[in-house]
């Protein structure tokens, strides 16, 4: 090809880069490895991790069983080596799958429209807040302290340069939002109230009550869901104006925190203020049903600085994992599975109570609960490692006022034996 382009050597093609910027030598770094070496190299890393441990950590990342068909399907090159479906005629597979995803998210959340995905649950809140600000024309936000601490951090980061004041409201003994405090915190500059349910402590909020208070003052309600599986057995937040959810629980590996998949769902009337991609049904020239990316005038590649968001590449393949997962469990399975989680956590709470204090015991919860212990949570966890158990997340960094406490999680993958062992340990 060099001759064809009329170059004497490859460096001719780089000659327009000012000489002083052209690299002379090789980059520094490990030499080229053979495939077998690469596999061994990563096996080395994977080796000193927690494979084979039972995981009683949740807090925004949930260890559920992943049916094997998910990976066999998403591993098809037609899915994972395709780009964003800009060219509808040769992207119907991805487009129809996203349309099915949007539909299932609506069904589960009780909303009317859902987008094709956002980065994750944390950035989802930030996008939802910006959306609420566009809709209401108001600028400030009230967020519950029981929302995932890292989600709140992300919101603060996004908000800091945009003149979006953020107030936090407290939680009660029950773990739920302090409604009085909330009511007091809302001003007529409040664009939205943000809560999470089940919240960071595993407590299920009284969404309807919060909605009343917010709506009375003309603010929108944004409900964040970190444990998507809860929707199998917990009433959807139909009173919310915007629901933003982390769908990792739906067949996405823990993967040390990512990639996961955020979703944003809302009411039809707000659709043109939504961030992210949307797939719509239409017909081709022959009247045959098909699907396309639509309402893209909201997006950055058309609207540039006036776009509803700067998001471009999102979480396509992860949304596909979630879609497949939702199909596998479906109408009955999600309920049955959620019920198993509910039962595991309920059993665990009963056992842990025998030797430690369960906080926020006054309101219903899904598969997480907060345990306060005599000793420091970290020491308890260290001890449990010998039994190949990863204990709950210590809360001292986020909620010093809760003392020696940790938020534990019991999914269907935590066996009774491990629950019993952990319950033993926390007392000591």
């Amino acid at each position, binding site marked *: 090809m060099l001759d064809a382009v009329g170059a004497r050597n490859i460096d001719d093609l780089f000659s327009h880069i000012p000489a002083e910027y052209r690299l002379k030598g090789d980059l520094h770094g490990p030499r080229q490895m053979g495939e077998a070496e690469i596999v061994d190299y990563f096996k080395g890393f994977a080796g000193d991790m927690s494979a084979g441990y039972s995981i009683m950590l949740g807090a925004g990342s949930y260890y559920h069983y992943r049916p094997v068909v998910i990976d066999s399907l998403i591993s098809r090159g037609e899915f994972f080596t395709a780009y964003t479906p800009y060219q509808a005629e040769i992207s119907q597979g991805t487009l129809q799958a996203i349309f099915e995803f949007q539909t299932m998210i609506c069904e589960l959340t009780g909303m009317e429209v859902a987008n094709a995905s956002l980065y994750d649950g944390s950035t989802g809140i930030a996008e939802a807040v910006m959306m609420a600000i566009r809709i209401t024309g108001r600028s400030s936000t009230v967020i519950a302290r029981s929302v995932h601490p890292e989600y709140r951090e*992300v919101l603060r980061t996004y908000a800091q340069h945009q003149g979006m004041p953020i107030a936090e409201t407290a939680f009660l003994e029950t773990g739920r939002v302090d409604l009085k405090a909330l009511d007091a915190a809302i001003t007529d500059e409040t664009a939205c109230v943000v809560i999470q349910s089940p919240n960071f402590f595993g407590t299920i909020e009284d969404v309807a009550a919060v909605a009343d208070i917010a709506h009375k003052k003309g603010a929108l309600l944004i409900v964040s869901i970190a444990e998507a599986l809860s929707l199998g057995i917990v009433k959807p937040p139909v009173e919310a104006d915007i629901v933003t959810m982390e769908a990792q629980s739906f067949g996405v590996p823990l993967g040390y925190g990512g990639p996961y998949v955020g979703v944003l769902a809302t009411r039809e009337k707000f659709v043109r203020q939504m961030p992210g991609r949307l797939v719509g049904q239409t017909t081709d020239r022959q009247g045959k049903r098909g699907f396309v990316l639509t309402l893209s005038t909201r997006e950055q590649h058309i609207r540039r600085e006036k776009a509803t968001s700067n998001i471009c590449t999102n979480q396509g393949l992860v949304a596909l994992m979630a879609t497949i997962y939702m199909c596998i469990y479906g109408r009955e399975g999600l309920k049955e599975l959620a019920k198993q989680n509910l039962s595991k956590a309920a059993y665990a709470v009963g056992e842990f109570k025998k030797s430690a204090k369960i906080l926020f015991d006054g309101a219903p919860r899904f598969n997480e609960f907060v345990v306060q212990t005599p000793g420091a949570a970290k020491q308890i966890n260290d001890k449990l490692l010998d039994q190949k158990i990863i204990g709950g997340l210590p809360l001292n960094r986020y909620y010093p006022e809760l003392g020696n406490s940790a938020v534990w999680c019991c999914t269907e993958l935590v066996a009774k034996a491990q629950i019993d062992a952990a319950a033993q340990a926390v007392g000591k």
Partner: protein
Amino acid sequence: MSDVNKNIKKVTRHVSQNEGLIFERSSAGKRGYRLPPLDVPEVDAGKVLGAAVRENLGEMPEVSEFEIIRHFTRLSTWNYAIDLGMYPLGSCTMKYNARVNETVVRLDGLANAHPYLPEKMAQGALRVMHELSQALIEITGMDAITLQPAAGAHGEMTGIMLVRAYFEAQGKQRKKILIPDSAHGTNPATAAICGYEVENLRSNAKGMVDINALAEQMNEDVAALMLTNPNTLGVFEEDIHKIADLMHNKGGLLYMDGANMNALVGKARPGDFGVDVMHLNLHKTFSTPHGGGGPGSGPVAIKKHLEPFLPTPVITAKDGRLAFDYDRPKSIGRVKAFYGNFGMHVRALAYILANGPDGLRQTTEDAVLTANYVRKKLEDVYDLPFKSPSMHEVVLSHRLQAQNGVKTGDIAKRLIDYGFHPYTTAFPLIVADHGAIMIEPTESEPKEELDLFIDAMRSIAAEAGSNPEIILNAPHTARVERMDEVTANRKPILRWKPAADAGKP
């Protein structure tokens, strides 16, 4: 029909299964799952949850595992993909996604690692992030990096926030960000989100930054210039040195959009030519799969003076063990929960190891060579709006074909008949009449495939003269024809409804 396709060498039509929506397959009692028996007492959900209990899941589907396999297998066959053929989407760097990356990322220890594992249990994952960080710092010639951003646009946002924090720290915030008219839409959108005014910077006749315009527009109100280099025309900003000086002399910073790093890796380093902050797209340059729209990963690399502001946590090595440092008072804070799209970090590192230093350079050289080869073979039949030397991609225009009413979008659709995914259409916007034909072959394409693409493009150029109708009505060979996007926009149908007429294909 058959004569419509007589010049097509690359593809043939074949049977393709129809398939309705999963909801149309659903019927009560079918199940795709089987749960192990519960080993603890089953609770009464109503009792436990009270008013919060959910009774039913509405229209969620009920299908068998086999139907799920068939459903998604059939859907997949309707997609075009890199694995099927050349995917010359300019600016997207659609290169081969090596299978070994998919293997290592699924290793139990990595795939099932909880982000809140005690650090001593997470050393393997931390090592992956550390090794990748080192490699990317070396490749970019920068001083430090964060792997937290989830995609390019997210990286841009992170980078511009670092710029903001830098000026905040100096106690004198600035108002504006300069953005060339050739820039990607995410650039201005990002600047706006970060609370900056966007000021447009026009390009010169060579498609490069107009130095004089920059000199005029640059002042103490300007925080930074968001530059893509090579720019979206695939052209290296030859005045990069002056550009950097102009910015720095006025106390401004130079941001580089690294989407086009596939033209530079191993050949030149942004850190060496004055860039203060930049993002990378691991899902472009470093081969992590696009997945039909993500996930991506957009690490942000910076120079020393921006380091204090990096998002938390930052990985640090203390006595041989790696740990997260959360105690960074000047940090802009988190841009995402946890540590970024770790799965993409694993893949990108595997890619770097599979290539090694020489392989990385070779890759860049091949990417630039294929782009120039395509340019050479097409520039006589398609207009080349900017004559500057091309690097990893070439931007042509539809000017000649437009005389017959054939636009870039039409040619794109006709390429589908010829067995290719289209190039990027109508971007960058500085190409007159939104006529851009933006082609990025990448290093992955063998000459045979490039020649078939060139043949197709030339054949379409000929058709534009002889029979524009074929092009305007394309595609003819796909299972669906052009979609009615107008109605889709005017009366959006964004979810399936039981009532709605299914109109099965």
